[in-house]
């Protein structure tokens, strides 16, 4: 039996846990991170790689803006290329109502210093002739882009380890309790004493609510993804559509990655799969927008296991039942971009009990019975 004692124990080696480990080490705390498998092998490693600010809910704006400032220098922070490319992200409007929505969104974003370019249908056609005709307009976020999800969380884990974090893979945390002074955490052949505990267990985070007498309506979300054979590079922007039915982008080597709609997954056997029916539907919608996609061969498909919440916003903040317990999970299919900021936010929560970035909206208490009655604030469009 191995016994260790640290300032902070982190459950979950996804992008949230790993970026937190690095930030906490940089702040001088001792850190141990546990993943039941390999770091970045779950949602953080299989997502669509979209690094996107546009389309986010107003409450996520400060967080996404903070992350956007980190992404362009992330390769320096991590010491490796994570294939981040600011190719620009374009949301297409198919109707006047959609255009209006984009305008409203752009006005909101401007208040957070995110400047989206509104393009008319005609301009879209001129600038991006590969977009089909049915376009009423578009909104372009030039700072947005994509990165290689398979590289990012493992790179955070490596960097954290290089900074002295104790990163333990294949170490499932089985129990945790608060003694009044510290946490006692158990994994096979391992006992951990920690002053702080970070619940970054992704889709499995519910376990670390019930252990501490908390609850949230966390469910499973399995975004459906697939990729085509490589074809010569023509699609210069990442594409999404108002209404969210489908999103896609082309990587430099030529493959087109498409997503949207539900796949299939099972948390206990830890298996996710693409749903063929979803894929065929997604493809049809994509080909209506970009006719050149028609006839491309799909070579691979997949899905992943991600925590979902009814209002499509994560739970980030201090536990309400247990001191020194921090939750950061339930990113509802759009947490990849937030990851680099989330590490810093978690670090601030550990060190000061609060973050300089407003996160009150993500408090777990919003799911108390009366809070649930309140309607979801308008503007969330993912």
């Amino acid at each position, binding site marked *: 039996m191995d016994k260790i004692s640290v300032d902070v124990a982190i459950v979950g080696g996804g992008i949230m846990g790993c970026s937190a480990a690095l930030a906490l080490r940089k702040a001088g705390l001792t850190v141990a991170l546990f993943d039941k498998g*390999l770091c970045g*092998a779950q949602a953080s490693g299989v997502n669509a790689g979209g690094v996107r600010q546009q389309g986010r809910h107003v409450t996520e704006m400060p967080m996404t803006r903070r992350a956007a400032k980190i992404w362009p220098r992330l390769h320096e922070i991590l010491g490796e290329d994570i294939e981040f490319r600011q190719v620009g992200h374009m949301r297409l409007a198919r109707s006047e109502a959609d255009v209006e929505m984009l305008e409203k969104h752009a006005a909101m974003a401007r208040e957070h210093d995110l400047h989206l370019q509104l393009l008319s249908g005609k301009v879209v056609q001129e600038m991006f002739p590969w977009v089909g005709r049915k376009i009423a307009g578009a909104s372009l976020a030039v700072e947005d882009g994509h990165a290689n999800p398979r590289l990012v969380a*493992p790179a955070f884990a490596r960097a954290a380890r290089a900074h002295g974090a104790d990163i333990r893979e294949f170490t499932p945390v089985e129990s945790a309790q608060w003694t009044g002074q510290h946490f006692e955490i158990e994994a096979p052949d391992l006992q951990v004493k920690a002053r702080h505990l970070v619940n970054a267990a992704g889709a499995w985070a519910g376990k670390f609510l019930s252990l501490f007498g908390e609850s949230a309506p966390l469910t499973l979300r399995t975004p459906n993804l697939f990729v085509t*054979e490589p074809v010569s590079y023509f699609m210069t922007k990442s594409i999404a559509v108002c209404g969210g039915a489908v999103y896609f982008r082309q990587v430099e080597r030529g493959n087109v990655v498409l997503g949207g709609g539900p796949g299939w997954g099972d948390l206990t056997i830890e298996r996710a799969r*693409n749903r*063929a029916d979803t894929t065929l539907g997604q493809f049809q919608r994509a080909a209506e927008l970009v006719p050149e996609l028609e*006839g491309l061969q799909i*070579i*691979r498909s997949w899905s992943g296991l991600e925590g979902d919440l009814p209002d499509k916003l994560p739970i980030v903040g201090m536990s309400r039942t247990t001191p020194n317990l921090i939750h950061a999970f339930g990113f509802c299919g759009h947490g990849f971009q937030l990851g680099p900021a989330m590490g810093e936010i978690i670090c601030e929560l550990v060190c000061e009990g609060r973050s300089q970035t407003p996160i009150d909206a993500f408090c777990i208490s919003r799911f108390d019975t009366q809070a649930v009655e309140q309607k979801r604030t308008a503007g969330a469009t993912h």
Partner: protein
Amino acid sequence: MKETIVIVGAGPAGVRAAETLVEAGLALIVLDESARAGGQIYRQPPHGAERPAEKLYGSEAGKARAIHTALEQIRPRVDYRPGTLVWNCFQGKLNTLHDNAQGILPFDRLIIATGAFDRVIPFPGWTLPGVFTLGGAQIALKSQGIAIGKRTVLVGAGPLLPLVASQYLEAGAEIAAVLDVTPFKAKIAALQRMMAMPAMVRRGLSYLSKIRRAGVPMMYGVRSLAVAGDRRVEGLAWTDHRGRRHQVACDAVGASFGLKPEMQLADLAGCDFRFDELTRQWLPVVGAGGRSSVPGVYFAGDCSAIGGADVAELTGIRAALSVLEDRGTPKPQQLRQLETELARHARFRAGIEAAYPFPNHLIDGIDDSLMVCRCEGVSAGDLRANFVKSGAPEVNRLKSFTRVGMGRCQGRVCGAVAAEILAAKSGLPLPEVGRLRGQHPIKPIPLVAGKQS
């Protein structure tokens, strides 16, 4: 009870399974990607390019004709859909593609009879134009009646090697050399077990004597293969079992190293797999009567373990009988005799596997510069260097970092080799580095919006 019974594959296994079920009065659907029935061994040329069975199948002409006729005879009573690729199996439904149109086929029982394909191990020059697999060399002959080159070298690690060599000679093609990468003494040691089927041994010997009579050099224990040529094949060099270097001029090479079951469908259907030490590959777990670990899913033929054409016919019948049994028919009499016969084949097969042991030396000899995954351009050096950096303890992790197996073939060709390289580099046992997770589509499928069958 009316059930939908589906067979995927119309090779010897699928056809015999279908015939058995039709004889029992059941309705069924047979799907096959090929335009014509027969599978790999009894592959038929395209319509309009027919040639006599004796020319195509040699000593096996009778069996080939029997399989083709069997299907023709039951055709009025089965829903046979040639040219239909099955590209996914999930929650009791198959996704199919026929003539660019998508289809969904729910089933109650599924017999997987998808056969096998060539096992590939890279060697210098293996991606050059003019290098084919042995199976590819045979397909060229069977379906188009042409050899892969004017002067061909054949390389292998299994019974397909002497067979294809003799078929090429029969067809009048020039063979520069026949190179077996497994040792001669293994054959001697395995002979007794192979004698479980004396007729098979005789047939094998007749291929060898044909090669000898033609004056074609035949060598065993060959290692360190290297294709000569920059743009295309100009020759092949190798080291013989005494350590002498050889080189011959040729314009084509047919090389593969045994067979690998075509098991993605089983994987997508959720069947359990096990690691087979003898052949160093992952195989589906086959239970009594050819049953898989998933109720209602059965195996027939080479898709779950390599047995060859005769075993394919027998296991085809066996899978059908298991379907009947699971539907409540009393245990068929035939089954006992079938199992006895299969046991004899299994002894013979064990002999074959021992006669052609897995050529580890080819894996050990893979140089850093050698391309392992041609779709994504990943070399052996890339894989090894990534392990040093990332410590990837299993092959899906290595895939995730290096893209090995992410291209068109989805690791069908390179996945097993990547696992071997990772195991060797990490010092982990091969079973521990695992196998690539299966995802649909089984083969690349064109997406054509709005077309549904």
